[in-house]
């Protein structure tokens, strides 16, 4: 861990995330077209866009969880595979089965699995680490609860603690604010600000346009392609929002539909 600190020094100036020319398609139906952006270090980035704009897909593509058609993704100037240890992921809360027989602590420990390594059991100091992260998000007293007995906000905090324990430099969060209570929302914002203070970067898919200004300093407006990206005060305006939310890209959809029809007739 320490031997790589020199290397980390070299990387520290490089952008946490650089996406170039990225296209992702499901069954040849494009979900993301020619996406390009760069994230400055130490920023809190909101991704906004309508349903089906490809926001979750973008995060998954960054982590190599969905195949990409074209383009390149650099995380701290290397391919994702080599930067895994520096990336923490908070999936959508609905993506997992909350009846799974594990406790909140078990879930948080999963954030340390990379550090623990294949086939080795978790040790005491890992537990301490996990408990500390749970304390940070205010759920330490729920550590031994089965996860189905947590409220929605507490479940989200569990996911957040799991990301914190990864001690990453770049965080990718898929709608952490969805369906949480006011106090959890506040706690998440506090944590994001804390991360920023430590020079870490967070990319957050966000739905509530009202709070973009106060929560983030950088924003990506996404609707199958990047409509605009940059500092919030520069790009988060009515014109760009209209472009992002104003109707779907009918022509793009038409051409991909035509491509599929053509293919089927072959």
């Amino acid at each position: 861990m320490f031997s790589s600190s020199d290397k980390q020094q070299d990387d520290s100036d490089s952008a946490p995330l650089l996406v170039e020319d990225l296209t992702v398609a499901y069954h040849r139906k494009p979900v993301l077209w020619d996406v390009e952006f760069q994230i400055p270090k130490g920023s809190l980035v909101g991704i906004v866009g309508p349903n089906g704009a490809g926001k979750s897909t973008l995060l998954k593509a960054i982590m190599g969880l969905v195949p990409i058609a074209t383009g390149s993704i650099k995380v701290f100037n290397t391919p994702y595979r080599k930067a895994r240890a520096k990336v923490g992921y908070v999936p959508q809360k609905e993506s997992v089965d909350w009846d799974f027989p594990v406790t909140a602590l078990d879930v948080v420990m999963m954030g340390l699995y990379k550090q623990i390594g294949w086939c080795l059991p978790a040790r005491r100091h890992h537990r301490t680490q996990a408990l500390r992260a749970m304390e940070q998000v205010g759920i330490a007293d729920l550590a031994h609860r089965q996860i189905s007995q947590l409220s929605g906000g507490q479940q989200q905090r569990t996911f957040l603690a799991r990301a914190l324990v990864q001690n990453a430099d770049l965080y990718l969060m898929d709608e952490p604010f969805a369906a949480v209570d006011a106090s959890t929302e506040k706690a998440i914002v506090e944590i994001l600000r804390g991360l920023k203070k430590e020079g870490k970067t967070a990319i957050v898919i966000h739905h509530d346009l009202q709070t973009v200004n106060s929560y983030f300093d950088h924003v990506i407006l996404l609707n199958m392609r990047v409509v605009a990206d940059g500092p919030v005060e520069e790009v988060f305006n009515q014109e760009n929002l209209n472009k992002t939310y104003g109707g779907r890209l009918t022509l793009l959809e038409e051409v991909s539909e035509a491509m599929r029809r053509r293919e089927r007739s072959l």
Partner: protein
Amino acid sequence: MTLDLNWNWMLDGWITAVAVVCAIACALLGNFLVLRRMSMLGDAITHAVLPGLAVAFLISDSRASLPMFIGAAIVGVLTAFFTEWIRRAGKVDEGASMGVVFTTLFAIGLVMIVQTIDQVDLDANCVLYGSIELTPLDTIDVAGWQIPRAFCTLFLVMLINLTFVIVFYKELKVTSFDPSLAGSIGFSPAIIHYALMVLVAITAVASFESVGSVLVVAMMVVPAATAYLLTHRLHIMICFSILAAIISAVAGHVSAIAIPASFGFRSTSTAGMMAVISGLLLFLAAMFAPRQGIAVKLWNQLALSWHILGDDIVALLYRVDEKQANQRTEKAWIREVLLCSPLSFTVVMTWLRIRGEIVIKTNELVLTDQGQHRAQNLVRSHRLWEQYLLDQVGIDPSRVHPQAEQMEHYTDKKMRQQLHQVTEKPSIDPHGSPIPEERSTK
């Protein structure tokens, strides 16, 4: 009726031992099939390995175990792979694509067996139903001991599965619970998935002989499903599933001998009885599981209704006392006022007398000091709620009573204190009745 077990350790001992290791081997993997909602994929693989066995037999021209396992493992992976492929390419749901894959492979396997190798003892019946009763006859020599071949194979498979589950416990847990996180930190869900499928295939082949392909599925899924109902911790679930597997195996064989015999029939299939017993265990778990059990829920409901009836009786006695009405508090009168069934009334009365809250004096029910205590706090809760509903919620005074009547049963001391505060410490309720003081336990 005498239970003539007619137990022969050399035969029945070994049959039971084979059944136990087989059931454990299956149950270990079953936990993850159940948790990944893939119970049917286990079913599919156990059927689909048949052509793998047939081809392995044709190539190697023997029933040796190794080629069989290799053939099965390959087809097992192919099943998982084809299922995924058809699901994507055909855009159908997983169940449908599984149905296509395994029936096709199973049919091919059956045709191959029947057409080309019918003369040998790899027959369809054996594959379907197993023949655990015959396993003690086919022994091999291990360090001077004559041990059934099936036992050795299954024991080995059980050890492999156990090692797999222990060594990859963490990986199995994270890929089952949250595959996208697992992928993001470099624990490939696909690798674990296919490893699991290979082991399912190998376990299925090893178990064919003993319990048959249909029952392999029961042994994989039912003990794990039983354990899932009983606990919220993964490692405990695995232990429980092993326990359920052992009970199914032992009780299965014993009852296969004993139950038909006691009715004057010949003993029945051990494998069949194992499935019956495991089904029975699942039923018991569904009924009596601590939290979700059906019977447990019913009992909790009943207990609550009795508790409420107890509350109502003491509160009624308190009110009669308070008004100093000239009313004889006889049982019949109370039952009439509270409209309760005779059975509930008897149960609750017995309970109240055991707890020393009520005594019977000259046919009348009288509150003891302890009963007085419970009643006073209840009436206090009731009247505070009435005041609160009127004051804070703004409900019409004529309608506050039924609401308060419900809430009083769920109100504890802390809540009463809060009510007392927010209603500005009233001394009478909306109907003019005095609100009694809090009585606290010494």
